């Protein structure tokens, strides 16, 4: 491995935030979309809010025994944080994460549970967040790709994906990262077939599968599995 590559892996550069002079600035589109309630209320403008049944006083208690109708405030545990958010019964977990919490790592690709782009972990298990209602995720621990690692603090799976070029356009990548992460949590030393099985619910259109396989197995070693 040469020096440039070491530098690159040690210091991921915030590439989306440079202006024409090379100065680093915040992403302007995040302004005012800080998260949680603030963004939800901004985005819910114009939405008729129907009466809410006795959930507001203790949203974290979950939804047991209740009839829920119209826009309702609930609390979701996402990446270790309690996030209050307004949803309708029909709002999917995916739309909630993406549109209300600005957690856009999980992608909307097929929106029918066929492609894996929206994969998140719920209580440690991979699920398609497009095929789960937000209400069904109340009281559970939701982990999105953002909760697995950050550019400054990459997880072993993420590091291995970078090093093995396990992505091209990158749109399916968060889903594969979540599937591989869940796999390594369960099987520290996976075989190639284990990786194929764990990622069999994820589709890549650019064709990076072989590199994903390499990355998942390398990640196990990075994690100290082998």
């Amino acid at each position: 491995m040469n020096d440039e590559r070491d530098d690159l892996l040690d210091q991921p550069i915030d590439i989306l935030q440079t202006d024409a002079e090379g100065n680093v600035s915040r992403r302007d589109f995040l302004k005012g979309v800080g998260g949680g309630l603030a963004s939800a209320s901004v985005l819910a403008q114009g939405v008729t809010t129907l009466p809410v049944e006795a959930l507001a006083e203790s949203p974290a208690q979950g939804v047991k025994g209740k009839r829920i109708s119209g826009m309702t405030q609930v609390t979701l545990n996402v990446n270790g944080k309690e996030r209050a958010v307004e949803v309708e019964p029909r709002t999917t977990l995916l739309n909630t994460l993406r549109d209300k919490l600005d957690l856009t790592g999980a992608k909307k690709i097929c929106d029918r549970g066929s492609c894996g782009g929206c994969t998140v972990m719920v209580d440690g298990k991979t699920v398609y967040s497009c095929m789960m209602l937000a209400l069904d995720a109340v009281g559970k621990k939701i982990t999105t790709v953002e909760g697995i690692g950050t550019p400054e603090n990459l997880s072993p799976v993420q590091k291995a994906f970078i090093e093995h070029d396990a992505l091209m356009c990158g749109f399916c990548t968060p889903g594969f990262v979540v599937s591989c992460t869940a796999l390594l949590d369960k099987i520290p030393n996976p075989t190639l077939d284990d990786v194929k099985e764990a990622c069999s619910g994820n589709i890549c259109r650019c064709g990076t599968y072989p590199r994903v396989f390499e990355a998942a197995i390398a990640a196990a070693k990075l994690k100290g599995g082998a």
Partner: protein
Amino acid sequence: MKAFDYVNPTDVADTVAALTAAGKQGKVIAGGIDLLGELKDYIETPTTLVNLKNVAGLNQIAVNAKGITIGALVTLTEITQNPVIQKEYTALAEAAHSVATPQIRNVGTLGGNLCQRPRCWYYRDEAVVCLKKGGTKCYAVEGENQYHAILGGGPSYIIHPSDCAPALVALGATIEIAGAKGKRTVPAEKFFILPTDNVYKETVLAPGEIVTSVTIPTPAAGTRSTYVKVRHKESYDWALTGAAAVLTMTGNTIKDARIVLSGVAPIPWRSPEAEAVVKGKTYSDDLAIAAGKAALAKAKPMSKNAYKVPLAQNTVLIALKTAATGKA
């Protein structure tokens, strides 16, 4: 999805009551994989969803001397990973594992797998009012029928999409149903109904009824089972054809056999004809080929699904060989 109310009962009685109150506008949701797909495509537009997941006691697997009882909320992943099911009820473990993808098996339930609606691409097309949706014709008859029924079809030619269903029918399971009038139990084989009985539904469930559990009797000594699923794509696909075979063997002799096909008919298709061919005989590949032929003898393929006849014959062969010899 059209907006709906969401009801969260915590016991079976309240669930049934909520469903009964909602009438035709009510749907029960467990894993939700199949239902949300229907809702997103506006195939169903219920005003009330009754959540089954908070109902106590439906997510257990109980084993005793008589057999195994699997709650309706047990996920396909849990079935796949259960050592008793893997060993004693192999066909079910294999069937559950063959369903869809890890993400779907992690939330998809046994009850949901049995009650899922057809995947027919006409049925799933919002703009097509087919026979099953109150229309006057089954579009598969003159249309694109490569994935449709070759047995038991008419007037609708859907195929039943479940993989667990043929395994359960083959294993002689019974299904416990709860409704406003209390509980009833039906053999898995009688749970599924042909379009000639009722074109609008695929099971005996009456409005307000739900599946609460499935019980499989302990198999006789020497019983081996398997579920073979042929699919175009190994990663996530529906069965082109499938076969569950449950054989009770003495040495190489097949004392008893139950053979149930998937991917060929509007219900899991039990084949007494194939069973008759193998019962009491010593296993050989030729015997299995003859069984496959017998199973498909009455097949009536349409314009684009004739390939399913040899394919299903061969699927029976592979299933019998696997069950009898442990090798495919």
